[in-house]
């Protein structure tokens, strides 16, 4: 059980694709910073891999950038920094993708 944080937009970088090749079913992915753009419905990486693990997006980063929940994949859960800390409590190992 591992928590992966991803901080780059999949529209300009292939970082999330690399991350997904290391993820297993009980892992969690948290989209932070410019990684929150991967939560958009138009970001295809999520759709391709959605069943694989649990996805989260950091609310502060998403709202700072003007992302609206209605434009994002509904399966991705929104968490704030407090929820971010809870995810790190629940996962013993954290892998940061940047």
């Amino acid at each position: 059980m591992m928590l992966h944080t991803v901080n780059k937009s999949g529209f300009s970088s292939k970082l999330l694709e690399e991350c997904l090749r290391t993820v297993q079913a009980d892992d969690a992915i948290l989209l932070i910073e410019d990684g929150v753009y991967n939560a958009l419905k138009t970001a295809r990486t999520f759709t391709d891999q959605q069943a694989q693990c649990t996805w989260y997006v950091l609310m502060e980063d998403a709202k700072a950038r003007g992302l609206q929940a209605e434009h994002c994949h509904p399966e991705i859960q929104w968490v704030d920094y407090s929820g971010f800390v809870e995810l790190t409590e629940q996962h013993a190992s954290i892998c940061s993708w940047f």
Partner: protein
Amino acid sequence: MSDLETSQQDNQILVIFRKAPAGSAWAREALDLALVGAAFGQKVSLLFMGDGVFQLLEQQNPKLIGQKGTQAMMQALPMYEIDNLYVEGHSLVERGLDLEQLAVNCQVLNADEMPKLLQQHQQVFNF
């Protein structure tokens, strides 16, 4: 595209915004350069493409992450006579963005118009 065709002599500086707005200082520092260029009496145009189009999104709230954002500077552009704002249509479509979601009025450029825009400026700053 009559704008693009006729204004060849006047356009001096093109600043391209390609990076997402909040993750780095690029958007702010590119905008600083645009404003200084205008203050120096240059005719400055802005082009938003790639993740730079996200800079145009309305309802941004950068205070949530302790940033000032570029919204105030963007609103000040007309005061600096920076009126030529362009956005690449391809980048908008790829990200599923409509013009109504944008906080700023921009002229949408199609594939043919993109190279023309670059060619007609004497200097391109590409961030």
